[in-house]
């Protein structure tokens, strides 16, 4: 007799393995850095998600040790993945692309990586690259 919970846990783990593998394979297969970025930010989310779900079901329901840690890992993953993806994208744009390779913003300004850095003492707008390390890491605009 197969324990249905164990079946669910197994399915989750297999799915998680497959998605992790596909995400890594995407890094090899896709053409350029921007395309490659799509693989780890998407396909691997479900890879990690599956492992976390399996862990929650296994320890929470089968062994009766519920922990919040899986939820926290999910939260931290959702917080960090887009930020690191954005930094990789920016490094790529600054290093490999010219202004003409990108479409115009459609507003009066320029994309922030090509614009001059904001005045000292004034933190820049969200997502902007900042010269000094002082205001980095927080996307804040006091004027908004």
């Amino acid at each position: 007799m197969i324990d249905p919970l164990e079946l669910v846990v197994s399915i989750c783990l297999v799915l998680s393995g497959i998605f992790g593998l596909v995400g890594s394979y995407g890094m090899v297969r896709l053409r350029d850095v921007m395309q490659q970025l799509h693989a780890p930010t998407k396909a691997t989310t479900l890879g990690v998600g599956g492992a976390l779900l399996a862990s929650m079901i296994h320890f929470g329901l089968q062994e009766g040790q519920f922990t919040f840690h899986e939820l926290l890992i999910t939260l931290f993953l959702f917080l960090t993945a887009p930020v690191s993806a954005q930094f990789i994208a920016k490094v790529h744009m600054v290093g490999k692309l010219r202004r003409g390779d990108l479409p115009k913003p459609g507003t009066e300004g320029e994309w922030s990586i090509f614009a001059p850095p904001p005045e000292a003492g004034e933190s820049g707008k969200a997502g902007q690259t900042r010269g000094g390390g002082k205001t980095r890491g927080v996307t804040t605009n006091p004027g908004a």
Partner: protein
Amino acid sequence: MFDRIFPHPLLSLVLTATWVALVNSVSAGTVLMGAILGVAIPHVTKAYWPGRMRLRRPLLFAEYAVVVLWDIIVANFQVAAIILFRGRDSIRSAWIPVPLEIDEPEAITILAGTITMTPGTISAVLSADGRALLVHCLDTDDPGTVRDQIKARYERRLKEIFE
């Protein structure tokens, strides 16, 4: 007075809850330690976050979270299918500038994060004036539709939540 002690009340609450979840036990000690962190960290980081986030309709966040979670699952299958079954050279990537209507920095941050986690798109950079977001789309024939979808599905909801 309240503002001086709690520059970001919501952040304080979240930090306390995160600490309790991290320790994984609810006792007077952990809650106290969490509360100390919840008061201290907003003070230490106050200089980097001078404005205060205002949620007009926080309950809509639940709806937004469900929509985004569902889209993330769909995105995983779509991107996996593209990686596995599409020819290397038949993938048509595009840069799409998305004009923004929202101007709260927190809302833009959430939108940028959402775009990165959901189907076939990554937010790359914001314009210097904060009025447009550059999005990279993995595979599309029609960049206009992708832009309209982002605006209709995510930005509209965020606008309702924040403004």
